[in-house]
């Protein structure tokens, strides 16, 4: 739109500088003089003639401005002007500017931080090519009807792959850690086994070395491994010559064929990848569903069509293999949904919460601007009288608020950088937070910050600006000082802002209050055992060396006895899975002598333990006996059950002596119940206890075991000697997951702790802002009513009367806000009931306490200015104008 000549002439204009103004002035003077002459010639008196000439010229300053503006890069120039002026105005009132900028920085910072989590986890596409066509195929039991799904069995996977046409490719993965030996201490490296083609399907290529070859997916093939970038750097020192080297992994000489790039992290725990041997016996298993199947939909095939096809295939497999596949079907879930679906509601709740915080901050700043614009009425009136149009005044005021919001956003962004780090630090690795390492502030987040800072700038600035520019000039110019009672509309706007601020704060506080209460309940939950001074770790036993049950059991026994003999140790016990470690075996069982209902086979957590397990953990025996020498390898299998199982299946009878039947690794086994123990929390503190079945490890030694040590003092100090004791028995087996029970329990509540923390911080910010807002409004009201208060006191009003007058005014606002907030809270806290433990989403005690807390804070914030009002000397107040 600007041609080069025009641009050139504009630039020349700038060289002219003051000459432009002088010449324009001279030109106009000439014009006026000519007109005067003509008027005189037409018969006017000289005074009349000049008056008429000048009047017809109108506002010459404005005319000058307009002529000038033609040449300027007018928008930029005007913006610079407005900015300069705005900066001056804000600088003149540093306390106001500081409070406003801080409020906005907190609001925008919190939003930026949470949005960067939402953006990284929920919005950004998964780091695979064409990620939207990737789906997870889960097995679902249609009879169970609870919507829970499992992975696939290896044999099912191969049938799915062979029979389906809706997919470009199907791949499977399953956990496959390896034990690295031959170094200082054996290490268990978490890893995954991939089926052929899965790497290619995920678009992953080693950045060093080569991918798996076809032959390597056969049992006869050479043992090979791909390293993750992290493992390569961390465990192998970033050795540039690593490809081609051979290591002893799980007792097999294994060649490193490549290193994957740093951003390939699928599944997120894997540090090494090995090929899944597709011709092994394991791949014919059909009854255990433990492999994850990922498919890439063929081009143009919608997920519904693939779903229909898979249901047909599953139905066919049900007929062919009724013993393992009856009632099993397939459900397709988009890969992203599978990865982030669980975390989404919580993140959206947090995003909503910070949105409220920002609204509170906006209401606060808008209120301050309204108060200030009342004080600036004269200045604005003067500008209007000098020819500034209403839009010009509004633009100037909006520039000021945008300036505030931009400075707030810049500070907020800094705060967000720190906040994102703080959020990440609050998330322990064990929480399995999806895409944790992808969380960062990227350009999308910056765009979001810019957008919200613009929106907030306009949002809190527009009403005050319109309010300020709408006025009658004469009245304002004549007005001597502060106005006596203030504009009605202005008052109403301010009251509305305060009420909504209080209502929003109440909402946030209630949400935080519920979470805090729920978290306190959670932490006070009795895990069912004594958690202090407990140390747990996982001890590997290679199948090559300890494949025989008896060898394995005696190996574990020796470890347990050696450790128990240490001076730091009170006792030591074994279990196939220690509580809170997330490792639990789930077994189906039936009660012998009762008709079995094939549609409803009960399941329970199964643990294979050493006899002193209950004593070591402090789990009380309720009836019967513990395991002892009688429960040796060859003797009749015994079981101990927990009280929940006893109550559910043997109410009114004695469970002792009854028999249950379990399927132990495909071998039906009958166990006699010999004891009943108290319930324990096995999976997490928040997880209600289900059925637990224990058997003696000598009769059923599991493949890996957890060693549970009760130390005499702080358990961390015993770690080293326990490690040494174990390695003195076999230095080739890896010791992993060494953790104290306190750590484990703390990790099991990491997620609720994170939400509680964040929401509490947000609520605290909102509460502070609201308190500042109420204080500001009441101070302003008191200042405005000083004259009136003086009159009242002169007429005999007591201090108490004045106090009551001011406080009752603020109380009506507070109660309106609290009332509205409570209504909103009842409606909104319901969406967070999934985050609550043992607390109702409309817990009356929390609601009452929060309403009281907020009212008290609000009352305090208005009491300070109210007291100031009573200190007013009537004489000064009367003169105060």
């Amino acid at each position: 739109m600007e041609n080069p000549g025009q641009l050139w002439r504009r630039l020349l204009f700038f060289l002219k500088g003051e000459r432009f103004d002088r010449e324009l002035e001279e030109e106009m003077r000439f014009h006026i003089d000519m007109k005067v002459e003509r008027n005189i010639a037409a018969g006017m008196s000289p005074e009349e003639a000049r008056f008429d000439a000048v009047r017809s010229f109108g506002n010459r300053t404005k005319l000058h401005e307009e002529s000038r503006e033609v040449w300027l890069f007018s928008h930029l120039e005007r913006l610079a002007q407005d900015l300069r002026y705005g900066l001056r105005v804000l600088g003149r009132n540093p306390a106001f500017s500081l409070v406003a900028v801080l409020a906005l920085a907190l609001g925008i910072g919190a939003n930026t931080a949470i949005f960067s989590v939402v953006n990284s986890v929920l919005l950004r596409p998964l780091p695979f090519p064409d990620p939207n066509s990737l789906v997870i195929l889960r097995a679902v039991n249609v009879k169970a009807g609870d919507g829970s799904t499992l992975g696939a069995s290896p044999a099912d996977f191969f049938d799915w792959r062979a029979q389906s046409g809706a997919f470009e490719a199907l791949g499977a993965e399953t956990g496959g850690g390896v034990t690295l030996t031959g170094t200082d201490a054996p290490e268990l490296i978490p890893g995954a086994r991939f089926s052929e083609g899965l790497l290619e399907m995920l678009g992953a290529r080693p950045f060093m070395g080569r991918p798996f070859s076809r032959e390597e997916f056969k049992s006869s093939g050479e043992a090979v491994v791909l390293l993750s970038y992290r493992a390569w750097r961390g465990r192998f020192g970033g050795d540039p010559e690593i490809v081609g080297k051979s290591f002893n992994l799980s007792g097999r000489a294994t060649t490193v064929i490549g290193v994957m790039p740093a951003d390939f992290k699928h599944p997120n725990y894997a540090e090494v990848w090995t090929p899944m041997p597709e011709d092994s016996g394991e791949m014919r298993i059909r009854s255990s569903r433990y492999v994850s199947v990922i498919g890439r939909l063929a081009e143009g095939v919608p997920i519904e069509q693939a779903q229909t096809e898979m249901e047909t295939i599953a139905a066919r497999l049900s007929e062919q293999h009724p013993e393992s596949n009856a009632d099993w079907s397939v459900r397709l879930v988009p890969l992203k949904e599978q990865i982030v679906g669980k975390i989404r509601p919580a993140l959206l709740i947090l995003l909503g919460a910070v949105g409220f915080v920002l609204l509170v901050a906006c209401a606060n700043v808008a209120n301050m601007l309204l108060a200030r614009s009342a004080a600036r009425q004269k200045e604005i009136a003067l500008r209007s009288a000098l020819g500034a149009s209403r839009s010009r005044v509004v633009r100037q005021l909006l520039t000021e608020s945008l300036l505030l919001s931009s400075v707030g956003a810049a500070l907020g962004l800094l705060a967000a950088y720190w906040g994102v780090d703080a959020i990440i630090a609050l998330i322990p690795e064990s929480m399995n937070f999806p895409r944790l390492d992808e969380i960062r502030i990227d350009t999308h987040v910056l765009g979001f910050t810019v957008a919200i800072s613009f929106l907030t700038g306009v949002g809190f600035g527009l009403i005050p600006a319109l309010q300020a520019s709408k006025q009658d000039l004469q009245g304002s110019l004549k007005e001597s000082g502060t106005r006596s009672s203030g504009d009605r509309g202005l008052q109403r706007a301010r009251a509305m802002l305060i009420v909504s601020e209080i209502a929003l704060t109440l909402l946030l506080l209630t949400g935080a209050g519920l979470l805090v209460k729920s978290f306190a309940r959670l932490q006070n939950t009795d895990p069912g055992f004594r958690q202090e001074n407990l140390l747990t770790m996982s001890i590997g036993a290679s199948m090559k060396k300890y494949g025989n049950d008896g060898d394995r059991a005696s190996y574990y026994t020796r470890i347990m006895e050696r450790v128990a003999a240490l001076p730091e140790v009170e006792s030591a016990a074994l279990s196939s899975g220690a509580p809170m470690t997330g490792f639990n075996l789930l077994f189906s069982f039936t009660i012998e002598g009762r008709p079995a209902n094939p549609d409803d086979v009960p399941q329970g957590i199964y643990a294979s333990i050493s006899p002193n397990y209950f004593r070591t953990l402090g789990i009380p025996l309720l009836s019967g006996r513990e395991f002892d020498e009688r429960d040796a390898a060859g003797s009749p299998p015994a079981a101990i059950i927990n009280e929940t199982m006893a109550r559910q299946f043997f109410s009114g009878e004695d469970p002792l002596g009854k028999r249950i039947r379990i399927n132990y690794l495909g071998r039906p086994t009958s166990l006699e119940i010999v004891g009943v123990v108290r319930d324990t929390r096995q999976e997490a503190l928040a997880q209600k206890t289900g059925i637990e079945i224990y058997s003696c490890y000598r009769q059923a030694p599991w493949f890996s075991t957890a060693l549970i040590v009760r130390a005499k003092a702080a358990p961390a100090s015993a770690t080293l000697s326990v490690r040494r004791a174990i390695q003195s028995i076999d230095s080739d087996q890896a010791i992993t997951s060494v953790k104290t029970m306190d750590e484990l329990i703390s990790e099991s509540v990491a997620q609720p702790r994170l939400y509680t923390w964040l929401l509490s911080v947000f609520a605290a910010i909102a509460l502070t802002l609201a308190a500042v807002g109420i204080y500001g409004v009441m101070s302003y009201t008191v200042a405005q009513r000083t004259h009136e208060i003086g009159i009242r006191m002169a007429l005999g009003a007591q201090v108490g009367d004045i106090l009551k007058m001011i406080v009752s005014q603020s109380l009506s606002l507070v109660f309106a806000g609290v009332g509205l907030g409570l209504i909103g809270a009842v409606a909104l806290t319901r969406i967070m009931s999934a985050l609550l433990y043992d607390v109702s989403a409309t817990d009356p005690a929390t609601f009452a306490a929060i309403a009281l807390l907020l009212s008290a804070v609000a009352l305090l914030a208005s009491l300070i200015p109210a007291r100031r009002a009573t200190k007013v000397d009537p004489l000064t107040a009367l003169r105060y104008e």
Partner: protein
Amino acid sequence: MIKGKARKKSELLPGTLDMLILKTLEQGGVMHGYGIVERIRQLSEDVLQVEEGSLYPALQRMQLKDWVASDWGHSANNRRARYYRLTPAGRKQLQQEVSEFDRVMGAILRVIQTA
């Protein structure tokens, strides 16, 4: 921008000020601002009076667009005055504006006469 004065007060279509100035300069050659106002007033028999408040910003705008150029010279009573003249670009612009005006005016007239 342009006020109808004297007997009839009528608002002219916006945007016609530029055209009137250009036309005046085309006929009058080199003129100063006051001269332009006077000429328009006379030619329109006092119906059109250009406000000074609109004239000078308009002249600046037209200089920026290179439709008119200005030089300082001396008036009849020997006072320094700024004189404006039409540039070739201004002449082209005038033709465009006149033909556009004719088109719109013709259309308006057709509507009015039909009614």
